């Protein structure tokens, strides 16, 4: 089906589509997009063998800006579409992207179950701690007490740590990046895509419009890199780098190896087919004759 061209290298710019981003000047998502172009270039990913899927939100516009196959779906359901693509066509590189509202509020259930299955896709969650596209309402990652357009008296809810959620529900690669650090984020995306299994990358991606310049500064102040001697295969150790007050730890927090959902399905298929050829409709129907 695809004509694979040998030894063709792709420059980051080669992945740009002809659409111009609708994002506000200074939006953190530009950093993520640039990191994605670079990571894809590093991995020499073929655009025609790649699908990027998203839900709804500012960050969910991203698939339109990459010249791979892309699908900007409906709110909260990027991972459901990604499940269909990756299960039906395991040989494709599949990346889902979206924001904190899309992935943790309306789409939270899908995050839990996609992580649990260990579906071999990469999910990049661009986290600005606010609903940007709908103009400034509270999100699941908005800190408690923050005043937003929908929390006039301050946010009464505690925030969720997406990395903690992903680790606890079965993701086998979990990392955190910062859109202001494109080099780091590039490396994390490349690492995540290379991982076999569900890789979850939470990228802090400030919203200049609804969180102001302060968010960027505040994030920079609390950023730290995970220590070099961190045992990323240790779940308890990994959990230490989530939700720490006053510190936002970036880097690969957790990584374990094991069969992905696709590996398990493939194994099951081999068992079911057992070297036999595909049964015909007649053969399937014949199993419904009275069995005596």
């Amino acid at each position, binding site marked *: 089906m695809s004509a694979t061209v040998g030894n063709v290298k792709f420059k980051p710019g080669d992945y740009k589509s002809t659409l111009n981003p609708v994002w506000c000047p200074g939006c953190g998502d530009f950093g993520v997009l640039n990191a994605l172009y670079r990571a894809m270039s590093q991995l020499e990913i073929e655009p*025609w063998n790649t699908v990027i899927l998203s839900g709804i939100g500012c960050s969910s516009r991203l698939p339109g800006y990459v010249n791979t196959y892309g*699908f900007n779906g409906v709110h909260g359901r990027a991972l*459901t579409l990604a*499940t*269909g693509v990756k299960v039906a066509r395991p040989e494709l590189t599949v990346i889902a992207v979206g924001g904190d509202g899309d992935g943790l509020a309306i789409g939270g259930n899908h995050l839990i179950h996609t992580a649990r299955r260990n579906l071999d896709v990469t999910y990049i969650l661009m986290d600005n701690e606010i609903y940007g596209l709908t103009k400034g309402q509270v999100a699941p990652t908005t800190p408690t007490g923050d005043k937003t357009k929908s929390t006039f008296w301050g946010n009464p809810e505690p925030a969720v740590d997406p990395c903690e959620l992903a680790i606890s529900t079965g993701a086998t690669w979990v990392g955190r990046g910062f859109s202001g650090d494109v080099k780091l984020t590039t490396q994390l995306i490349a690492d995540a895509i290379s991982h076999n299994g569900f890789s979850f990358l939470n990228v802090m991606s400030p919203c200049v419009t609804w969180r102001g310049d302060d968010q960027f500064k505040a994030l920079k102040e609390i950023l730290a890199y995970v220590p070099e001697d961190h045992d990323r295969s240790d779940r308890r150790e990994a959990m230490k780098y989530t939700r720490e007050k006053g510190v936002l730890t970036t880097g690969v927090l957790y990584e374990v190896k094991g069969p992905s959902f696709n590996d398990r399905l493939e194994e099951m298929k081999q068992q079911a087919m057992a070297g036999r050829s595909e*049964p015909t409709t007649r053969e399937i129907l014949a199993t419904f004759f009275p069995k005596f």
Partner: protein
Amino acid sequence: MPIQDLTFAIVGSGGDGVVVLGDFMAQAAAREGLHCMKVEAYGPQIRGGESSCTVRISAVPIFAQGDRVDVMIAFNWADFGRFKSEIVASANAVVLYEADDETPREEVEPHLGTSEGSRWIPVPFTRLAKESAGTALAKNIVTLGICSELFGLPREGLLQAVTKKFSTKKAGVLEANVRGFETGEVWAKEYSARVADKHLEFSRGEPMLLMSGNELSAVAALHAGCRFFAGYPITPSSEVLQFLSEWMPRVGGHLVQTEDELAAIGAVIGASFAGVKAMTATSGPGLALMTEMLGLAAMAEVPAVIIDVQRGGPSTGLPTKSEQADLWQALFGSHGDAPRVVLAPADVEDCFHTTVAAFNIAEETQLPVIVLSDQFIAQRKESLSMLTLDHEVIGRQVPTAGELADYKRYRDTKTGISAMTWPGMKGGEYQTNGLEHDEAGRPSSMHLVHEKMNAKRYRKLRQVRDKYSFFRTYGPENADLGIVCWGSAKGPVKEAVLRANGRGEKVSAFVPQMLYPFPNHDFRHYLRGVRDVIIFELSYSAQFYKYLRTFEELPDGHTFLFKRSGGKNLTVGEVEDKIQKVLEIGALRREVLV
């Protein structure tokens, strides 16, 4: 005088073996090439509780569940209470009931509907089972023996079914059950003469398949080349998911039981976008959850097949019973203008053809296609000839080299259909969108783009209407009375129409199997040939009748409606009553005119 068509009803509690008994009867009948239809009904309990099973067995083709039972088998009259408005016996039925049950006949008879010609035979089911097989559990096997003797059910087939079931059990179990069967036969001999009018007469034919609509839909999907299924369990559609969980990997496909219906339809759209034919199956509440992404499939123009097995609603409603009230949801359930195709199987065999047709239409037009089945069709078992189960399959349409040069995913064409690439095709890369988009797939919120693309998407329906015009008619071309119905209402309607024709009454029926786009021209043509019309449906708010009126003037003063809630399947008797009433009105009217 022997009979060619017999309906049995069996009622009992968990442990009485009602379902196994019905199953053995149906399987033995299918093995002999007899026509049969088996319908099960349960109380709300997950295990145990009351259950009933009706089995109609006939030497001639049948189209409906027999609404008047010829043989009633009651292990326990208390269990009959739950089904008393659903099981009605013919006036001269044979009633076999547990001899130890002391419920007086007067208490049961008014509900059962039998009268003086009936024969009430107390049967010591439990005692016979204990004495012959050593356990009361064998009472269903004793009953098989009795039925074989009294009603002429195929003895050899029934015994083989018993052998098959118990041969793997520990030593002595099989022998005990065969003794139970033979004890039933011997016990029944003295009654044979009294019930000779219920002795089935048939000649052996080729073995038939015994399948439910859900099973057939699942096989049809595989036949159509479906290689991805995602679903979430919901009664009464779960058999599709269950069957495919075994068979999808065998044909090299994939199946995912998702976390909810939202994920199921999402995964189906994802797989289809990726170039693989895909389907989900659900019931009304699940379709409600899928409705947002039904709009996505329409907007992004991704082929998708959704089977909705209707049950009683709204909300949790009557999960194990049939109704025809998801119609509007299937036809119109949407935000925005979302074209889709809606097909409706009218019997078990139809589940095969409509499901394959659904894939063909979806692939040709890149539309979501809903197959609107219902519990009655989906869960009853019918005998079928394998010969009728074939249907042309249309594959994924591959773009030509010409279409790939200067490729635009949503190119506006005469038919509205544009070439669709899929991942892996170099040069076919595109970004699709739930946002309104232009021909290249680029998001746009401009009014003129929206108007143009809506027109493009709706234009695809024309081809569907022109190419596929699924409907059936029964009865004479010109009739005094025409019946219009859809889905599982067809069975009893067809049977009533054929009976009326047999009496010389000019009655016909029109049954569309494609509900959207509706075969308007054929329907108009049909209406011209009938004087009076009755619409039959199981929807309290008359969704079908109102739907027909959105595009067709029904003859003023000549249109009658039979509608009621679901929960009980439409019966031939109900159809016949209404036919007689309307024929009488017609006759009165002609008297006045003369």
